[in-house]
Structure formats: structure tokens, C-alpha cells
């Protein structure tokens, strides 16, 4: 019998993804085999799987920037950085989730193995987006991540607010996906391909000619930007965010404020820069205006919130605005273009400080308190270490040197200034000042007010360790920002088509 000749994919390039997939299978199998009491074993399985997946990045030769599966999958420095960010965010999310989900903060408790599996699926999806070499892969990765997060948002199924948030998120998400896929269809129609590099290659001759771009291309571009704008919660496509963040179980809020955002920004970088880079004149203004609107809206409305989860929801909209500034600073593929690298570095920083902030809220909840500003009163006397951690996160989100958040903002501003977007850089600084109002308010009530409500002593070692790691990371990575930035700067090599 003749052997059918198939193109053998390079399995070596997708080892991190494969390890994660294996972990998911083990977790799901464990759900069937283990009794409820033994479920906590799976925490370690998931953490080990994530750590292993993160470590396996070392086995790949990123310098080569090879692709496989017919160019669907690219193993380059950009995907490496995304792998690092989501891997770290995944580990931190599992650490802050276990006590909440297993500890029964929600009515009737939540099934931990399913939670873990969904979380890992969403991480896997985001890694695929980071490594996507084709519009279809981007779509698949985003949907894989989003569907898991929709389910996670409504995971506390006995609580109406959780279901409400999930339903809104899902309906609007489906709507946005439709816009995104419509944009992809138009792109295919206008260029005849869905491969990112190929799109760029076909666009380049079009641009060099006289006159503007075709209307069909413009429409494709706008629809793609809008569809992805929903995923990162840019104004005016942000409306789902506060409801979803408030309704979701707290650790999920922390997780979904980071990883789906990473997916969205990774897709934006892949689509707008790698594929549609030649059209940058057409999308840069849009991104800059979205950035301004997003940061102003998010930061201003956050002031009015008393619910800390909701406040962090709006604040995350504000941060989306800052990150968009980095993207808006794209100026072509030169070696010192800091646009995408500042975005990547910001995402990395954001994972630490925002998951950390939600982690402290989780910490309070597991000690019988609520999630409003009043529940933070006098935290400094009840639990000084938690108060210190929260202070670090708040100051970092605010952008105080020498914390990680400062460097993240600094590099974004630097990128903007380099291309002459002074007004946008000024806006970032002004909005940071505005944001001080609601971040410092949390710090103030923790230290200057007397505690209210009952405090029940509780041991949550994994959550505590996670918070400590994030607080230390927020301090240390700030001082060590330059090697990370050097790594992020290699996006130029990854996208290197110039």
C-alpha cells in the first residue's frame, strides 16, 4: 500500500502549547477520577503544567523565527513574549483563585477542576493568538479564549449578578466577533489571502501608488480594529466591562482584566502592524483617538465608583487607553521603534499589578468582608502585609517610580514622544494624575480609617504567596526593566518584513 505523503509539522515549535493541552487533559481526567476532597491536587498539576510550559520556551530557537502548519503558527520573539506574559499571568491567577473557588465564597461552592480547565483553555487560546500567522488562527485563538472566559464569568451560577455579567459579555462578545469576522472576510476579499505576511506583501505595492486606499480595504481595516477594540475594552466598545468584572467571581475578574486583554492586543499587533502595517497612515489616527477617549473615560468614571471591583474595571479601561498609546506610536519597522515593545512591556507589568489588586480583594472576601471601599477601612491594622501589598499595587497602577507601573507608563510615553505624539503623552500624564484620586483613596482608607465589620481569621497560604510574589515582582521588575524591554524590542525582528 502506498504511504500517503503529508507535510510534517514541526512539533518542536509548539511544545509550550502541547504541554498546556496535556495539562488540560490531565485536569479533566482528574475531575472524573478524583473525589471532591482530592481536587486540590489539581492545583499543583495546573501550576506545574503552566510552569513547565513556561520553561519549555527555552527549548525553542526563537532567533530563527520559524513558522509551521503552513505558516499558520509562528514561533518568533513576539509569540515568546506573549507566552511569558500569559504563562506568568496564568500561574498568578491560579494562585489567587484556589482559596476562593475551593473555599466556598460563592453559594454552594464552585467546581475547581472545571474552573482550572477553562482557565487553561483560555490561556492556550491566547498563546495561539500570540503565535498566529493567519487571520483564521487569530479568530480561533480569540474565540477559544473568549468562550472559556464567558463561562468563567458566569461560573458562580447561583448568583444572579454573575450570570447577568456573563450573559452581557457573551451577547456583546458574539456581536463583536461578528464584526471581527466580517472584517476578516473583507480583508480576504480585498487581498485574496488570510496569511498575515502575505497580506502585507500584497498591500505594499498598492500603497506606493498614487491616491488613497480602496474603500473595501478601509472597511476591512476599520471592522477589524473595532472587533478587536471590543476585546480590549476600548471606548466606545467597553460597555460590557464593568458589569462583567463586577459580576464575575473576583479572581476571574483579575484574570479577565489581563489575559483576554493580552489576546486582544496580541491580535491587534499581529493584524494592524504585521499584516496591515503598510496601511498604518489610515489606522494610526483611529488608534490615537481611541486611546485618548478610552483613558479619559475609564479614569474619570472610575472616580465615581464605591465598589472596588467596579473601580478596578474602569481603571482597566483607563489602562487599555495607555496601552493603545504605545500602539499609536507605530512608525514603521525600524529597529528602534518602541511601539509594540512598549505595549508588550505594559502587558507584562499590568499582569502583576492588576491580578495583584484583585488578589487583595479576594483576600478580603475570604475573610468575610465585601468588595466596597468601606471594607478596606483599617486594613493596615488588621493585616499590615496585605495593606502593604495593596499599597504597592495601587501606587504601581498609578505609576509611581520606581514601581513596575511607572516604567510601563514611562516606555509608552517615550514611544509616543519619539514619534511626536506629544499631546497623547501629555494626556497619559494628566490621566495618571486623575487616577491618583481613586487609587490613593484605597490607600487612605486602609491606613487612616478604623476597621469596620467582622474579620474572620482564615489561612490562605497560596493566595498569600501569590500576593507576595506579585508585590515583590512589582518592585523588582521595575528596577530590572531593561532586559525585559530588550526582549520586547525584538518584536521588530519577529515582524521583520521591513
Amino acid at each position, binding site marked *: 500500500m502506498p504511504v500517503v505523503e503529508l507535510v510534517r509539522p514541526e512539533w518542536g515549535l509548539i511544545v509550550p502549547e502541547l504541554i498546556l493541552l496535556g495539562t488540560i487533559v490531565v485536569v479533566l481526567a482528574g475531575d472524573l477520577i478524583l473525589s471532591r476532597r482530592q481536587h486540590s491536587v489539581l492545583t499543583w498539576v495546573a501550576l506545574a503544567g503552566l510552569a513547565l510550559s513556561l520553561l519549555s520556551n527555552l527549548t525553542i530557537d526563537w532567533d530563527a523565527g520559524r513558522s509551521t502548519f503552513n505558516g499558520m503558527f509562528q514561533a518568533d520573539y513576539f509569540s515568546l513574549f506573549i507566552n511569558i506574559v500569559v504563562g506568568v499571568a496564568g500561574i498568578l491567577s491560579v494562585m489567587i483563585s484556589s482559596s476562593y473557588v475551593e473555599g466556598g465564597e460563592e453559594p454552594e461552592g464552585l467546581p475547581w477542576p472545571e474552573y482550572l480547565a477553562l482557565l487553561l483553555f483560555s490561556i492556550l487560546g491566547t498563546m495561539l493568538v500570540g503565535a498566529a500567522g493567519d487571520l483564521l488562527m487569530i479568530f480561533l485563538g480569540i474565540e477559544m479564549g473568549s468562550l472559556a472566559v464567558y463561562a468563567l464569568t458566569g461560573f458562580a451560577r447561583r448568583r444572579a449578578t454573575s450570570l447577568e455579567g456573563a*450573559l*452581557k459579555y457573551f*451577547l*456583546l462578545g458574539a*456581536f*463583536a466577533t461578528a*464584526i471581527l469576522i466580517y472584517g476578516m472576510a473583507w480583508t480576504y476579499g480585498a487581498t485574496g489571502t488570510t496569511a498575515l505576511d502575505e497580506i502585507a506583501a500584497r498591500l505594499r505595492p498598492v500603497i506606493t501608488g498614487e491616491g*488613497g486606499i480602496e*474603500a473595501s480595504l*478601509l*472597511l476591512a481595516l*476599520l*471592522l477589524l480594529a*473595532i472587533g478587536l477594540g*471590543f476585546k480590549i475594552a476600548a471606548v*466606545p*466598545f467597553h*460597555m*460590557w466591562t*464593568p*458589569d462583567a468584572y463586577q459580576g464575575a467571581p473576583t479572581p476571574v475578574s483579575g484574570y479577565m482584566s489581563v489575559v483576554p486583554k493580552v489576546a486582544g492586543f496580541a491580535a491587534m499587533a499581529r493584524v494592524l502592524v504585521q499584516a496591515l502595517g503598510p496601511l498604518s497612515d*489610515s489606522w494610526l489616527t*483611529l488608534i490615537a483617538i481611541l486611546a485618548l477617549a478610552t483613558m479619559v*473615560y475609564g479614569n*474619570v*468614571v*472610575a*472616580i*465615581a465608583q464605591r465598589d472596588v471591583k467596579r473601580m478596578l474595571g474602569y481603571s482597566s479601561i483607563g489602562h487599555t487607553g495607555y496601552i493603545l498609546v504605545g500602539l499609536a506610536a507605530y512608525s514603521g519597522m525600524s529597529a528602534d521603534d518602541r511601539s509594540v515593545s512598549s505595549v508588550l512591556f505594559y502587558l507584562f507589568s499590568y499582569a502583576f499589578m492588576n491580578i495583584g489588586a484583585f488578589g487583595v480583594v479576594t483576600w478580603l472576601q475570604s475573610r468575610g468582608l465585601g468588595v466596597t471601599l468601606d471594607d478596606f477601612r483599617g486594613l493596615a491594622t488588621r493585616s499590615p*502585609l496585605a495593606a502593604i501589598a495593596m499599597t504597592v499595587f495601587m501606587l504601581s497602577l498609578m505609576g509611581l517610580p520606581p514601581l513596575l507601573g511607572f516604567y510601563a507608563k514611562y516606555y509608552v510615553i*517615550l514611544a509616543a514622544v519619539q514619534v511626536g505624539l506629544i499631546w497623547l503623552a501629555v494626556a497619559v500624564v494628566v490621566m495618571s494624575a*486623575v487616577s491618583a*484620586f481613586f487609587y490613593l483613596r484605597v490607600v487612605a482608607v486602609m491606613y487612616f480609617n478604623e476597621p469596620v465589620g467582622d474579620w474572620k481569621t482564615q489561612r490562605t497560604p497560596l493566595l498569600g504567596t501569590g500576593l507576595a510574589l506579585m508585590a515583590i515582582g512589582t518592585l523588582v521588575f521595575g*528596577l*530590572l526593566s*531593561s*532586559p525585559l*524591554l530588550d526582549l520586547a524590542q525584538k518584536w521588530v525582528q519577529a515582524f521583520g518584513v521591513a
Partner: protein
Amino acid sequence: MANWLFLIPLAPLAAAVINFLFGRWYIRDRAHWLAILGVAAAFVLSVAAFAQVAGDGEAISQHLYTWIPAGDFQIPVALTVDQLTAVMLVVVTGVGLLVHIYSVGYMHGDPGFYRFFSYLPLFVFSMLMLVLANNYLLLFVFWEAVGLCSFLLIGFWYRRRSAAQAAKKAFVVNRVGDFGFGLGVMLIFVNLGTLEYTGVFEGVASLPQGTVTLIALLLFTGAIGKSAQIPLFVWLPDAMEGPTPVSALIHAATMVTAGIFMVARSWAIFAASPDAMLVVAIIGAATAFVAATIGLTQYDIKKVIAYSTVSQLGYMAFALGVGAWAAAIFHLMTHAFFKGLLFLGAGSVIHGMHDEQDMRHMGGLKKYMPVTYWTFLIGAAANAGIVPFAGFWSKDEIIVGAWVGGRPIIAIVGLIAALFTSLYMFRVVFLTFHGEERFDRHHVKPHESPAVMTIPLLILSAGAVLAGFVGFPPENGAFHHFLEPVFSGHGAEAHHVSTATTLTFGAISTVIALAGLGLAYAAYIRGSLNPATIAARLGPLYQLAYRRWYFDEIYETVIVHPLYRLSVWLWRVVDVQIIDGTVNGVAALVSFTAQRWRRVQTGLVANYALAIALGTVIIVGVYLIVGSNLFQ
């Protein structure tokens, strides 16, 4: 390259951080173990670094990472150990280690025990980074960190009002100097485009004379603050409010030496400006003299030693000013031993006397605390410059340096100050340990301190006896040869000192020191001179010294008081009415807007979807209108 250099500062830092985070709940009264271990590790590594530098004769360095990469403004965090740094490392960690061990006994039972043992290694860490830095910005950062640590430690007993005041005073006075130092660093960067030592020293030659002088004077302003020179020395005596081991650390190893070190480190800049050198020399000599006169008149045992430190720092400064670089560092090193010894000895006395510090209530303690007495006597002899103790060699060399450096007047001022030094040192010894017992024997039972306190005294006294011999023969000792590579090049000129000069000044110094001793003996043991009558006869001069030359009073009336009233005005009028009014107004406006916008969030999915759809339509529409010919 030496990839282990980072461990030197890391060890005390780790101890400080761990004690600070976990000390209160878990470590508590075991905090000293980690701290001592950390500083001991730093000491061993420092000795290793010293040995390597001494063996190879070349500086070793380690680049850690680039701290601020912003275009041309590249600030590396790199550690460098050359001969100068090697000496400082050993002094800082060695004296630091002994102070740590001593503190175990001294601070025993204090409720802030863990806090003390997290600040103390942090202090050592900051000082280590200060001497290890290879550029001015890093130096400046840890210059400030040292200031912060001194603030924390001087105000350690912060519930005591005077301690809090002293800490504040130390911090504010230092800020004045730091401001000048900061300006100097900026001026260097503006003119030379780099802050790394090697680049700066090479570039200095190309700068105009005026600029170099300005840079040197601004840098020296920082040293005036940190190393307690006239007119900013007022903080140092007040810093006695901290626990005594802290005083020892500040005076001997970690803080006041920073200014001297910095000027020595920047010697290429100073050497290029004769005017700046003259200013340094004059201020140094004036400080040495003024502080010595004040030291004669004080009764608080720690205050006398504190003014003695100010005076000795004056010697170091004028040594720098006359270009006797190696002699300044030599004196810094010997001073670290005997001043650490004197403070720890004074602490032992205070400990044994149940917190009595006034020498008028002491006397005859020799028989109660023999170890403290003998070690203190050695320290005093070293400070007074009696042959052959450590202080003699280094001080003599400074005075000779001034003489052959063409500044005879300064050398003579130095000699006069030396007479006072010997006098006030032995005054302390005689008043404290000899004569009749002037304390109430029913309430105070003097006792010798525990071994954990006396052993550091013994070790330091060995240093106070022997440290001088590394500089023997004068001007040509092992110490000078070791430091030679640092202070050569960049147009350095060596003065030839004849043996005759050396011997002559050695003899003069010895006679002067013994004269001081004799005067003190006559006044406080034999009673043939009555100090009270002499003080009365000197009248206003005595008052001038006793009132510390009225520096504090002048600052109080001329600066502090007007500043205070200005501050109150700024607070009541500018801050509360103008600034707060504006800020509150803006906040109210933003808050109002926020409340309005909040209503947009209706919670209805249909509305949200409408927003997305409208947003899409508007964006696409605007693009089509502006960017296409559809509507034109």
C-alpha cells in the same frame, strides 16, 4: 570582571529586608543573628576583594545592569573596587560588624530590637553601595539612602521628642548639602555628558577653570553637610540622641566618612581647581579648630566625642584641601578604629552608669569597669595623637602635608587644634575614670559591661594601637603604596618630604600632645590648675566655645524662625485657600462629570449593543467622509 562583587552589598540588604518584613512577628529578639551574619559575610567578601585588588594591583568591577536606558542618558548599575574602595569596604564592614555585635548587648530588651537590626544592616548596605558605585548618579542615590538611614536610626526612639527633633535636624541640614551636591552632579552631566567616574575624570581637563571650580565647590557642599564641616556641622552633636552604637557607626564608618570619601574619589576634579582646594583647606582647618574648642567645654561624654569627630573630620578635609589625599584616607581609616572604640566605650560607660551621660556625675569608674577604662584610654591616646598610637601617624602626616603643600598657616592651626584635642580627650578620661566618685552610690551601681560589648572594644583597641603602622614609615608606608594607583595621573604631583621635616614635625606633635596631657593632668588630677577660674578669666571666649560659637542660635533666629513663619503663611494662605481651593474645585468638577457619565451605563444589553453599533457606524462614517471621495 568579578561576578561575586554584588554579594557584598546584597548580604546586608537581604538581612535588612528579611528582618524588616518578618522581624515583628516571627524573628523578634533573634533578629541580630541574620544581621550579624549578613554583615559578617560582607566583611569576609570585602577582605577577599581587598586581597584581590592588593594582589593584582588593578581595580575589579562588575556590571549588574543598565538602570536607566534613555537615549544618551545611560546609567549603569556597576560596582567597582579600586584601592580606595577596597580600603573603605574593609573599614565599613569591619567597624560595622563590631558595632552589630556590640549592639546585641546594648539593645538587649528594646521593644524595637528587630527594627534596629533591620535599619543597621540597611545603613551598612547603603554605605557599601555608595563606595562601590562607579558613577555619580548611583553615588548620589546611596548618598541619600545613607541620609535616610541616619534619619531612621537617630530617631530610633521616635517617641522621645528630642530624638525625633535631632533626626529631623540631621535630615534637613544634610538636605542643604545634598542640594549642592545634586547641582554639582547635574553640572557634570551637562558639561561632560557622562556621569561615570572614568569618563568624568578624563573630561575634566578640557573644561574651563571656572566650571571646574564651580563643580568642585558644589560637590564639596555635599561633603560639608555629610561630613559635618563648618557651617553645617550642627546636626552631628545632636545626632547623639540615637542609640550609642548608631553614633559609633555614624561617626566611625558609615556616614560622615562619605563626604571625605566622595572628595577623595573626585580628587581629579578638585586637583584641577586650586581655588576650590583652598576653600576646602580653609573650611577643614576652621572646622578642626572650632570643634576642638567646643570639645573642651562640654560635659556630656558623648557630646565631647562628637565634637572630637567634627574636629577630626576637619583634619581630613584640610588634608584633602592641601592635596594630601592618601593622608586623608589614612586618617579616615585610623579614625574609624579609635572613634568607633571611643563611642562604644562611652556607650559601655553609659550602660554601666544606668544611662548617665554627664561627666560631672561620674568619676573613679576605673576600678568598676577596667576593660572599658583601658580600651577607652587607648582610644583617647590614639585620638590625642600620642606616639605610637594610630592617630599620631595619620594626624602628623596631615600636618606635614599642609606644611610642604605650601599652607604653613593651616599647618599651624592644625597644631593648635592638636593641643586642644589632647587636652579635651584626657579631660574626658580623667573626669570619667579618675578622681573622686561624684555619683550617688545608693542609686547607681557601676558595673562592667557583658562580654558581647567588651570584646568589640578589645578588637577595636588592637586596631587603634596597630592601624597606624600600615603607614610607617611616614609618606612611604605600605598604605601609601597601596593607594598610589588611585591618586596618580590626571596631573598629580608628589611632594617630596625630607626625613628631617618628618622628624621635626613628629617631635613637635609629640610635645604638643604631651602638653595637652600634662595640662589635663594638672587641671583634673593634681588640681594645680582650676578649670573654673580659667573659664571665668577667659570670660566671653569660654562662653563662645561653651555655646558652640552660637551656630545653633544664629540658625534659629536667621533661618529657622523666619522660615517657620513663611511656612505658616504658605500653609494658611497659599495652600489652604489657593491650592486646596483649586484642587477641590477640579475634583468636584471631575466627580460631577463622572456621576453624569455613569448614567450612560444603564445595564441594558440592548443599549450596550447600540453603543457598539453606533460607534462602528460613526467611525466608518467619519473615515468615509474624510478619507474617501464618496461625499465630495
